[in-house]
Protein backbone atom coordinates (compact mmCIF):
# COMPACT_ATOMS: atom_id res chain seq x y z
CA UNK A 1 0.00 0.00 0.00
CA UNK A 2 1.26 3.44 -0.90
CA UNK A 3 2.14 5.99 1.70
CA UNK A 4 -0.80 8.36 2.33
CA UNK A 5 1.58 11.31 1.92
CA UNK A 6 1.92 10.52 -1.81
CA UNK A 7 -1.83 10.64 -2.16
CA UNK A 8 -2.08 13.98 -0.36
CA UNK A 9 0.73 15.53 -2.41
CA UNK A 10 -0.76 14.15 -5.60
CA UNK A 11 -4.15 15.64 -4.83
CA UNK A 12 -2.57 19.00 -3.91
CA UNK A 13 -0.71 19.12 -7.22
CA UNK A 14 -3.85 18.23 -9.11
CA UNK A 15 -5.80 21.03 -7.44
CA UNK A 16 -2.93 23.45 -7.95
CA UNK A 17 -2.57 22.69 -11.63
CA UNK A 18 -6.30 22.88 -12.19
CA UNK A 19 -6.05 26.64 -11.61
CA UNK A 20 -3.49 27.04 -14.38
CA UNK A 21 -5.91 27.37 -17.26
CA UNK A 22 -5.02 29.32 -20.35
CA UNK A 23 -6.16 32.89 -20.51
CA UNK A 24 -8.67 33.64 -23.26
CA UNK A 25 -6.83 35.17 -26.22
CA UNK A 26 -9.73 36.28 -28.37
CA UNK A 27 -9.92 40.00 -29.05
CA UNK A 28 -12.18 41.72 -26.57
CA UNK A 29 -15.68 42.60 -27.56
CA UNK A 30 -15.49 46.05 -29.05
CA UNK A 31 -17.91 48.66 -27.82
CA UNK A 32 -19.19 51.08 -30.43
CA UNK A 33 -20.69 53.58 -28.02
CA UNK A 34 -24.03 55.27 -28.50
CA UNK A 35 -25.13 57.53 -31.37
CA UNK A 36 -24.17 61.20 -31.15
CA UNK A 37 -27.78 62.32 -31.07
CA UNK A 38 -28.11 60.83 -27.59
CA UNK A 39 -26.19 63.85 -26.29
CA UNK A 40 -23.77 64.17 -23.40
CA UNK A 41 -26.26 64.99 -20.69
CA UNK A 42 -24.35 68.18 -19.87
CA UNK A 43 -26.59 71.02 -20.93
CA UNK A 44 -23.99 73.70 -20.21
CA UNK A 45 -21.90 72.62 -23.22
CA UNK A 46 -24.70 71.49 -25.49
CA UNK A 47 -25.75 73.66 -28.40
CA UNK A 48 -29.38 74.71 -28.44
CA UNK A 49 -31.85 73.96 -31.19
CA UNK A 50 -32.13 70.21 -30.79
CA UNK A 51 -33.30 67.67 -28.26
CA UNK A 52 -31.05 64.90 -26.95
CA UNK A 53 -32.34 61.51 -28.04
CA UNK A 54 -34.13 62.88 -31.10
CA UNK A 55 -32.14 61.85 -34.20
CA UNK A 56 -34.17 64.03 -36.56
CA UNK A 57 -33.65 67.23 -34.57
CA UNK A 58 -29.92 66.47 -34.22
CA UNK A 59 -29.56 66.00 -37.98
CA UNK A 60 -31.46 69.21 -38.62
CA UNK A 61 -29.24 71.07 -36.14
CA UNK A 62 -26.15 69.73 -37.93
CA UNK A 63 -27.52 70.84 -41.30
CA UNK A 64 -28.47 74.31 -40.07
CA UNK A 65 -25.15 74.74 -38.28
CA UNK A 66 -23.18 73.72 -41.37
CA UNK A 67 -25.09 76.04 -43.66
CA UNK A 68 -25.07 78.98 -41.24
CA UNK A 69 -21.47 78.59 -40.21
CA UNK A 70 -19.72 77.45 -43.35
CA UNK A 71 -21.74 78.64 -46.32
CA UNK A 72 -21.28 82.39 -46.70
CA UNK A 73 -23.51 82.40 -49.78
CA UNK A 74 -26.35 81.76 -47.34
CA UNK A 75 -25.07 84.29 -44.81
CA UNK A 76 -24.66 87.04 -47.39
CA UNK A 77 -27.96 86.36 -49.05
CA UNK A 78 -26.44 84.81 -52.15
CA UNK A 79 -24.43 87.85 -53.24
Amino acid sequence: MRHPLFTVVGLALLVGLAACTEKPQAAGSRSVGSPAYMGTGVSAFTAGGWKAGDATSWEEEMRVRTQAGQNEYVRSGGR
Partner: protein
Amino acid sequence: MARMKFICDAERCIECNGCVTACKAEHAVPWGVNRRRVVTLNDGVPGERSISVACMHCSDAPCMAVCPVDCFYRTAEGVVLHDKDICIGCGYCSYACPFGAPQFPSSGTFGMRGKMDKCTFCAGGPEAHGSAAENEKYGRNRLAEGKLPACAEMCATKALLGGDGDVVADIFRTRVTRRNKGSEVWGWGTAYGKPSSGSPAPKATKS
Protein backbone atom coordinates in the same frame (compact mmCIF):
# COMPACT_ATOMS: atom_id res chain seq x y z
CA MET B 1 -28.65 59.31 -41.00
CA ALA B 2 -26.01 61.90 -41.79
CA ARG B 3 -22.64 60.72 -43.06
CA MET B 4 -19.92 63.00 -41.76
CA LYS B 5 -17.17 64.12 -44.13
CA PHE B 6 -14.40 66.71 -44.45
CA ILE B 7 -13.42 68.53 -47.61
CA CYS B 8 -10.79 71.25 -47.95
CA ASP B 9 -11.17 74.02 -50.50
CA ALA B 10 -7.62 74.48 -51.84
CA GLU B 11 -8.55 77.86 -53.36
CA ARG B 12 -9.27 79.24 -49.91
CA CYS B 13 -6.76 77.63 -47.56
CA ILE B 14 -4.13 80.21 -46.57
CA GLU B 15 -1.97 77.83 -44.53
CA CYS B 16 -2.71 79.67 -41.30
CA ASN B 17 -2.78 76.41 -39.32
CA GLY B 18 -5.80 77.63 -37.39
CA CYS B 19 -7.40 74.21 -37.83
CA VAL B 20 -4.32 72.51 -36.38
CA THR B 21 -4.31 74.85 -33.40
CA ALA B 22 -8.05 74.47 -32.83
CA CYS B 23 -7.72 70.68 -32.80
CA LYS B 24 -4.73 70.68 -30.47
CA ALA B 25 -6.44 73.04 -28.05
CA GLU B 26 -9.87 71.41 -28.13
CA HIS B 27 -8.60 67.91 -27.38
CA ALA B 28 -5.42 68.68 -25.44
CA VAL B 29 -3.51 66.61 -27.97
CA PRO B 30 -0.07 65.67 -26.57
CA TRP B 31 3.22 67.03 -27.82
CA GLY B 32 4.39 65.27 -30.98
CA VAL B 33 0.93 64.23 -32.10
CA ASN B 34 -0.92 66.16 -34.80
CA ARG B 35 -4.34 64.88 -35.62
CA ARG B 36 -4.55 67.51 -38.35
CA ARG B 37 -1.92 69.28 -40.40
CA VAL B 38 -1.71 71.60 -43.38
CA VAL B 39 0.09 70.30 -46.46
CA THR B 40 1.34 72.76 -49.09
CA LEU B 41 1.73 71.61 -52.67
CA ASN B 42 4.44 73.26 -54.80
CA ASP B 43 5.57 75.32 -51.83
CA GLY B 44 7.25 78.54 -52.89
CA VAL B 45 6.17 78.22 -56.49
CA PRO B 46 3.63 80.71 -57.85
CA GLY B 47 0.25 79.07 -57.66
CA GLU B 48 1.05 76.96 -54.62
CA ARG B 49 -1.93 75.41 -52.88
CA SER B 50 -2.49 74.23 -49.33
CA ILE B 51 -4.89 71.68 -47.98
CA SER B 52 -5.74 70.71 -44.44
CA VAL B 53 -5.45 66.96 -43.95
CA ALA B 54 -6.57 64.61 -41.20
CA CYS B 55 -8.49 61.35 -41.05
CA MET B 56 -10.98 61.46 -43.92
CA HIS B 57 -13.29 58.93 -42.25
CA CYS B 58 -13.26 56.75 -45.36
CA SER B 59 -16.38 54.85 -46.32
CA ASP B 60 -14.16 51.83 -47.01
CA ALA B 61 -11.38 52.53 -44.54
CA PRO B 62 -8.09 50.65 -45.13
CA CYS B 63 -7.11 51.08 -41.48
CA MET B 64 -10.15 49.04 -40.49
CA ALA B 65 -9.20 46.35 -42.98
CA VAL B 66 -5.63 45.87 -41.77
CA CYS B 67 -6.05 46.20 -38.00
CA PRO B 68 -5.04 42.82 -36.52
CA VAL B 69 -7.06 43.33 -33.34
CA ASP B 70 -10.12 44.85 -35.04
CA CYS B 71 -10.16 47.94 -32.84
CA PHE B 72 -11.81 50.20 -35.44
CA TYR B 73 -15.51 50.79 -35.83
CA ARG B 74 -17.78 53.13 -37.73
CA THR B 75 -20.43 55.10 -35.89
CA ALA B 76 -23.98 55.62 -37.05
CA GLU B 77 -22.85 59.02 -38.35
CA GLY B 78 -20.16 57.47 -40.57
CA VAL B 79 -17.24 58.49 -38.35
CA VAL B 80 -14.34 56.01 -38.19
CA LEU B 81 -13.22 55.63 -34.58
CA HIS B 82 -11.09 53.16 -32.65
CA ASP B 83 -10.99 51.66 -29.20
CA LYS B 84 -7.72 52.49 -27.45
CA ASP B 85 -8.33 49.73 -24.91
CA ILE B 86 -7.98 47.19 -27.74
CA CYS B 87 -5.31 48.93 -29.87
CA ILE B 88 -1.85 47.35 -29.51
CA GLY B 89 0.04 50.17 -31.22
CA CYS B 90 1.39 47.97 -34.02
CA GLY B 91 1.28 50.74 -36.62
CA TYR B 92 -0.33 48.74 -39.44
CA CYS B 93 -3.01 51.40 -39.80
CA SER B 94 -0.30 54.00 -40.29
CA TYR B 95 1.08 52.10 -43.28
CA ALA B 96 -2.38 51.50 -44.71
CA CYS B 97 -3.71 55.06 -44.41
CA PRO B 98 -3.19 57.15 -47.58
CA PHE B 99 -3.54 60.37 -45.58
CA GLY B 100 -1.05 59.68 -42.78
CA ALA B 101 -3.81 60.14 -40.23
CA PRO B 102 -2.79 57.63 -37.52
CA GLN B 103 -0.42 59.20 -35.02
CA PHE B 104 1.59 57.56 -32.27
CA PRO B 105 2.67 59.28 -29.07
CA SER B 106 6.36 58.85 -28.33
CA SER B 107 5.74 57.34 -24.92
CA GLY B 108 3.13 54.91 -23.71
CA THR B 109 2.34 51.39 -22.74
CA PHE B 110 4.37 49.91 -25.56
CA GLY B 111 7.63 51.75 -24.98
CA MET B 112 8.57 54.17 -27.69
CA ARG B 113 5.30 53.92 -29.59
CA GLY B 114 2.07 54.22 -27.69
CA LYS B 115 -1.47 53.49 -28.77
CA MET B 116 -2.67 55.07 -31.96
CA ASP B 117 -4.33 58.47 -31.88
CA LYS B 118 -6.17 60.14 -34.73
CA CYS B 119 -8.87 62.62 -35.65
CA THR B 120 -12.21 61.59 -34.17
CA PHE B 121 -14.30 64.12 -36.12
CA CYS B 122 -14.78 65.49 -32.60
CA ALA B 123 -16.93 62.44 -31.85
CA GLY B 124 -15.00 61.02 -28.88
CA GLY B 125 -14.76 57.27 -28.45
CA PRO B 126 -16.69 54.23 -27.27
CA GLU B 127 -17.01 55.46 -23.69
CA ALA B 128 -20.08 57.34 -22.49
CA HIS B 129 -20.50 60.68 -24.28
CA GLY B 130 -18.88 63.53 -22.42
CA SER B 131 -17.39 61.26 -19.73
CA ALA B 132 -14.01 61.94 -18.15
CA ALA B 133 -12.65 58.65 -19.55
CA GLU B 134 -13.68 59.58 -23.07
CA ASN B 135 -12.22 63.05 -22.73
CA GLU B 136 -8.91 61.74 -21.45
CA LYS B 137 -8.47 59.14 -24.21
CA TYR B 138 -10.05 60.78 -27.25
CA GLY B 139 -10.77 64.40 -26.43
CA ARG B 140 -13.97 66.31 -26.53
CA ASN B 141 -17.17 64.94 -28.05
CA ARG B 142 -18.56 67.94 -29.91
CA LEU B 143 -20.92 65.95 -32.12
CA ALA B 144 -22.81 64.77 -29.06
CA GLU B 145 -22.99 68.41 -27.98
CA GLY B 146 -24.70 69.30 -31.24
CA LYS B 147 -21.60 70.98 -32.66
CA LEU B 148 -19.36 70.39 -35.66
CA PRO B 149 -15.61 69.67 -35.54
CA ALA B 150 -13.59 72.50 -34.01
CA CYS B 151 -11.19 72.69 -36.97
CA ALA B 152 -13.96 73.34 -39.49
CA GLU B 153 -15.81 75.77 -37.26
CA MET B 154 -12.62 77.70 -36.50
CA CYS B 155 -11.45 77.95 -40.11
CA ALA B 156 -11.19 81.69 -40.86
CA THR B 157 -11.64 81.44 -44.62
CA LYS B 158 -14.08 78.51 -44.42
CA ALA B 159 -11.69 76.50 -46.56
CA LEU B 160 -12.14 73.46 -44.40
CA LEU B 161 -15.70 72.20 -44.55
CA GLY B 162 -16.92 69.54 -42.15
CA GLY B 163 -20.35 68.08 -41.63
CA ASP B 164 -22.90 65.91 -43.39
CA GLY B 165 -21.35 64.85 -46.68
CA ASP B 166 -24.37 65.92 -48.70
CA VAL B 167 -24.35 69.42 -47.19
CA VAL B 168 -20.60 70.11 -47.47
CA ALA B 169 -20.56 68.72 -51.02
CA ASP B 170 -23.40 71.09 -51.88
CA ILE B 171 -21.53 74.06 -50.40
CA PHE B 172 -18.33 73.16 -52.25
CA ARG B 173 -20.17 72.57 -55.52
CA THR B 174 -21.83 75.98 -55.26
CA ARG B 175 -18.46 77.67 -54.75
CA VAL B 176 -16.87 75.89 -57.71
CA THR B 177 -19.70 76.69 -60.07
CA ARG B 178 -19.85 80.34 -58.97
CA ARG B 179 -16.15 81.06 -59.35
CA ASN B 180 -15.80 78.58 -62.22
CA LYS B 181 -12.66 76.98 -60.79
CA GLY B 182 -11.35 75.36 -57.69
CA SER B 183 -11.68 71.62 -58.03
CA GLU B 184 -8.37 71.23 -59.92
CA VAL B 185 -6.13 70.46 -56.95
CA TRP B 186 -8.34 68.36 -54.80
CA GLY B 187 -11.33 66.89 -56.52
CA TRP B 188 -12.92 64.76 -59.15
CA GLY B 189 -10.89 66.09 -62.06
CA THR B 190 -7.56 65.40 -60.35
CA ALA B 191 -8.53 61.92 -59.35
CA TYR B 192 -10.30 60.76 -62.49
CA GLY B 193 -9.04 63.04 -65.25
CA LYS B 194 -10.81 65.52 -67.50
CA PRO B 195 -11.91 65.37 -71.11
CA SER B 196 -9.51 68.21 -71.99
CA SER B 197 -6.46 66.42 -70.58
CA GLY B 198 -6.85 63.49 -72.92
CA SER B 199 -8.22 61.02 -70.43
CA PRO B 200 -11.93 60.61 -70.84
CA ALA B 201 -14.02 61.48 -67.84
CA PRO B 202 -16.07 58.60 -66.57
CA LYS B 203 -19.71 58.77 -67.41
CA ALA B 204 -21.75 59.85 -64.46
CA THR B 205 -23.86 57.02 -63.25
CA LYS B 206 -26.18 57.02 -60.33
CA SER B 207 -25.73 54.11 -58.02
